[in-house]
């Protein structure tokens, strides 16, 4: 038990030190101090934001955007990835296109999308969906590509039709990579959500909140939002991992072997 305690103690040295430095900078006053709000105030603001529903409202707005985009972008990625994985001629033409477009940093599309669709939620959703689309389509296709030749042969012995091969061999075989794709898509969508909210801060959301706080020099609000973004990102990923481990319990990696 004491071993664990010392671990925690040692691990806490750095954060404690940083917190002390922070508090010192906040109290010192002077030119730079507006950037450092005292820790006590951060805690107060946290409670306030929670109580007046601001925090949860922003959190929910961002989360909703991410999940919706995951549905749209991830869903289309799944469909296209499956088609590309099953029909090789299609993938020869389409995959290079996807790879070409993927080179553009995702937020770099925003000015273009804004010019086409204006500044509204539609533009934001499109961009975040795009962020979810790429990893999904690529990993799904890879998943189908990776279908084990040996198992396909076994299927041939039982006269599997094309559809049966997909349903009983290729698709389950692709699931681990499909999940990888979805989990990457979730991460990217969450990041892209914050990104578009930072750049287009019209509606509610954690990113919007941060930009407003930056303008009014409310570092305490910024810190709270950063914390939320991090925690939420972690929870989303963790939740997905648990789902994956359950659905793929037959797969070696889910069982922690190899």
């Amino acid at each position: 038990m004491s071993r664990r305690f010392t671990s925690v103690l040692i691990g806490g040295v750095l954060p404690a030190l940083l917190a002390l430095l922070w508090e010192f900078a906040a109290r010192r006053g002077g030119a730079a101090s507006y950037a450092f709000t005292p820790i006590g105030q951060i805690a107060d603001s946290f409670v306030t934001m929670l109580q007046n529903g601001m925090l949860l409202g922003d959190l929910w707005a961002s989360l909703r955007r991410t999940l919706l985009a995951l549905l749209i972008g991830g869903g289309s990625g799944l469909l296209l990835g499956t088609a590309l994985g099953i029909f090789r001629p299609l993938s020869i033409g389409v995959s290079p296109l996807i790879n070409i477009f993927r080179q553009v940093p995702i937020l770099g599309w925003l000015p273009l999308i804004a010019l086409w669709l204006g500044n509204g939620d539609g533009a934001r959703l499109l961009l975040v969906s795009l962020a979810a689309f790429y990893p999904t389509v690529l990993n799904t296709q890879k998943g189908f590509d990776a279908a084990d030749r040996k198992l396909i042969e076994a299927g041939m012995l039982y006269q599997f039709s094309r559809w049966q091969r997909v349903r009983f061999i290729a698709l389950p075989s692709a699931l681990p990579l499909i999940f990888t794709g979805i989990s990457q898509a979730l991460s990217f969508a969450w990041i892209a959500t914050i990104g578009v909210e930072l750049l287009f801060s019209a509606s509610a959301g954690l990113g919007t909140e941060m930009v407003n706080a930056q303008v009014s020099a409310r570092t305490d609000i910024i810190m709270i939002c950063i914390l939320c973004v991090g925690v939420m990102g972690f929870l989303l990923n963790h939740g997905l991992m648990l789902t994956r481990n359950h659905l793929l319990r037959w797969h070696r990696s889910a069982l922690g072997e190899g």
Partner: protein
Amino acid sequence: MDKYRNFNHQTHAAPSAGSTGAVRIENLSKQYRMGGKALNVLQDIDLSIRPGEFVSIVGPSGCGKSTLLRLIVGLDSDFTGDIRLDGKRITGTSLERGLVFQDHRLFPWMTVARNVEVALLNQKLPRERRESLITSHLELVGLAGFADAYPHQLSGGMAQRAAIARALVNEPKVLALDEPLGALDALTRVKVQAELQRIWMEAGTTMIMVTHDVDEALFLGDRVVVMSPRPGRIAQIVDVDLPHPRDRASPVLHRLKDAILAELTAEPGKGDAGLVQFPVRPRS
């Protein structure tokens, strides 16, 4: 010594008493083309297998024995010559000809029962018949209690038995086995050999098994086909005229084993080309 259980199997019959599952191979040859040169993988294979017979095939690496099985089962259609099942030429794969691979190739995302069930996908059978076939075949291979286990939960021997159940559930006329016990450790192998013999005796299916293990070939087979490599040919066919179930200690088996090993290890002329010759060290 009637060990035949009352088994609900269409072609159930004492070995060699059934009328289906006769395999006739005539003039079979196969070539691979590698970088312009033609490699004779199999040359002029002639073999007649009686219904319900258990034929073992042994031979060194490169003698084409696995290729022969794949041709019989239809996973490969590129050959010259004739392969007939009960008089009809074979075309491609068929539910009448099954195969057990060395790696069990069970679908990892399905339970054992489901693995066996999907083999029946393309036989339009009523539900009860399907269920009874699955249950009876799992019992046959001794996995009755493991219907809901996933392949990763099974030991090597159990997984292979599941693969055998899957291969037999369609009640094929012929079952090919490609080094089915090769991936198992020595102790498990001995046990599963006995199991395989029992399964064959109960099911009565014609079986053609490729193996590296001469003991195994003799223990299980009514006849042992000895092949020689480059090009793949049948060197000799040894009759094992002993009743089933076999006694491992039988001197007949030992005598035959010596004969076969002699055939396998004696290579005329260029056989020593691959060996490293160490200079003889003078005694000091």
